[in-house]
């Protein structure tokens, strides 16, 4: 049997557990945390206790090693209830834990992973800069080797999980020299929070993910030991691209789970709300919307699970993960839009969870590579002439 859509017993139990957790522990507080822009240490710790940090990490470093699909299912189930908590989890895993796990040396893994996998600590991924967004290779942050230390100068922006009390380390992409072809040599360096010269500032006023932590980072002659280099010098850009390939799966999972949540709310409301003496879901125009939503969610799940399957089986998956990220986030956009429409005026009120879906969706078209950037990636994979830029 070559094609198999069944989830394993383990994955089914995991989905049930995470769904239970999200409904019982996140749903009752999600709106208030969003309103207050409050990062929840409690929920982060709980996600850690349940083993949701480090699902793809081997047990010797405190992970549960249940595979990438299980991780994707967990993110999906959290996002079904709340985008902010899903962001904390997905960034913590895909952007925080994963580069250290895949590129760190034994010592670095021993030092950081156990705390990261229990949710006691968070790591962040410092790539984006004020002048290097989609063009992430254009980093201006520099790291100069002086004796036994890297001296880092520059700044980063929009860095998830970087400024909480439990944010312990940032993987910083910096220019460490010039390559032979004249382009910048980029490397990733582990910079522990609290290092002198590493200044953090929490960003406020987000429309999306308001209960997720986002920071601006400044490096002013910030000195870290030269052993803090992640992997090999000059490998930074490759590490970053590979990290984002995996990260895109988790963004797609957030979109898929969010769409599922918004759809369920809309379906329920369409059965309960009556106008002209009938449930609004019985009007064909609304029933068709719900049919479209259900179909698109199913399609999103297929491409995401396929991309994840490729990743788990160590096949190339960069094209499919870009497709999944792009399709699912744009699909969530359509689904959230319909879901609010079906709620009428109530859908615009904060009391209704669908309002949060409508806002949170937008980040997913932008973070970890905008939809346009995903199309560039896909276009290159399918062999269009030129570089699609």
């Amino acid at each position, binding site marked *: 049997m070559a094609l198999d859509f069944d989830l394993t017993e*383990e994955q089914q*139990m*995991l989905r049930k*557990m995470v769904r239970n957790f999200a409904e019982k522990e996140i749903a009752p507080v999600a709106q208030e945390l969003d309103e207050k822009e409050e990062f929840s240490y409690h929920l982060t710790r709980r996600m850690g206790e349940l083993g949701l940090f480090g699902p793809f990490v081997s*047990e010797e470093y405190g992970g*549960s090693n*249940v595979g990438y699909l299980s991780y994707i299912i967990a993110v999906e189930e959290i996002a079904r209830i709340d985008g902010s908590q899903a962001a904390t989890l997905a960034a913590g895993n895909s952007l925080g834990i994963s580069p250290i796990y895949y590129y760190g040396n034994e010592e670095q893994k021993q030092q950081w992973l156990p705390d990261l996998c229990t949710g006691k600590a968070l790591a962040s991924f410092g790539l984006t800069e004020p002048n290097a967004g989609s063009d992430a290779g254009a980093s201006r942050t520099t790291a100069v080797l002086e004796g036994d230390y890297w001296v880092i100068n520059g700044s980063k922006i929009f860095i998830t999980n970087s400024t909480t009390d439990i944010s312990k380390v940032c993987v910083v992409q910096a220019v460490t020299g010039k390559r032979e072809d004249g382009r910048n040599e980029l490397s990733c360096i582990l910079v522990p929070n609290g290092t002198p010269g590493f200044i953090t500032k929490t960003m406020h006023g987000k429309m999306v993910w308001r209960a997720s932590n986002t920071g601006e980072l400044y490096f002013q002659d910030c000195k870290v030991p030269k052993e803090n280099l992640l992997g090999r010098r000059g490998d930074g850009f490759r590490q970053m691209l590979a990290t984002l390939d995996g990260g895109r799966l988790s963004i797609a999972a957030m979109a898929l789970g969010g769409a599922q949540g918004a759809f369920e709310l809309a379906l329920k409301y369409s059965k309960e709300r009556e106008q002209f003496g009938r449930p609004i879901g019985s009007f064909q125009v609304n029933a068709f919307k719900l049919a479209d939503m259900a179909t698109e969610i199913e399609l999103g799940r297929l491409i995401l699970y396929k991309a994840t399957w490729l990743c788990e089986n160590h096949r190339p998956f960069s094209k499919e993960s870009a497709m999944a990220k792009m399709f699912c986030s744009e699909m969530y956009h359509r689904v959230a839009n319909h879901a609010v429409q079906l709620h009428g005026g109530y859908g615009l009120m904060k009391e209704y969870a669908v309002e949060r879906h409508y806002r949170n969706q937008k980040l997913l078209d932008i973070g970890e590579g905008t939809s346009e950037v995903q199309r560039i990636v896909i276009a290159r994979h399918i062999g269009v002439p030129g570089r699609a830029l």
Partner: protein
Amino acid sequence: MKIVVCVKQVPDTTDVKIDPKTNTLIREGVASICNPFDEYAIEEALRIKEKLGGEVHVITMGPPQAIEVLRNALAVGADKVYLISDKAFAGSDTLATAYALSKTIEYIGGADLVICGKQAIDGDTAQVGPGIATRLGIPQLTYVSKIREIDLEKKKIIVERLLEYGREVVEAPLPALITVVKDINEPRLPSLIGIKKAAKAQIPTLTAKDINADENRIGLKGSPTWVVKVFTPEARGGGGEILKGELNEVVPLLVTKLMETKFIK
């Protein structure tokens, strides 16, 4: 300390449909869950184990798919689980079920404490727990909302029972059986590591023969209960009167009415 918890898989709804011909529950097409009260029973067993040491064994009698509730029990930390499953048990009523579960408990070497949920949400009889205690010849403490003390040396347990008119504190010698209500604790969720272990575990199935059950006391043969009809009673209409108004107006009115009906003189 060895604790045995008896759990039941039930349909995932309080609004179960009844087969009009046989008057039994229609189970097809309905998702199954662990009887909610039994989750509190498992949780309490785990808490006792964490405090006093020992082992938690979880047993369920049901069709092969009831194994799911046992996997969940393993995932949260049960040490051993047993599925009691055999065509010979089909059609067992609460009498036969209590008999089969008591035989199973004997077969696995008895228990210092047996814990059940106060009732299953499908049949709602609350009979199986007490039935097991009777057959094992041990005291039963039903509707337990708190365990105050377990003294392993003096072999006794002190609990609080949640009753309609208040709480009752009862002491009993061990071994004993308790049935628990939802106030007793907050059941934990399994962790990913727990799930991973549970999903892989081999779960033993016990047949009627394995537990030395008398074939005349199980299944339809051992079930004298005839379900004549299962229904939700109509809400009683009329009756009652709610007095409205300020306190100083209603109180004298109430007193007059009570005197009229001769409740007070």
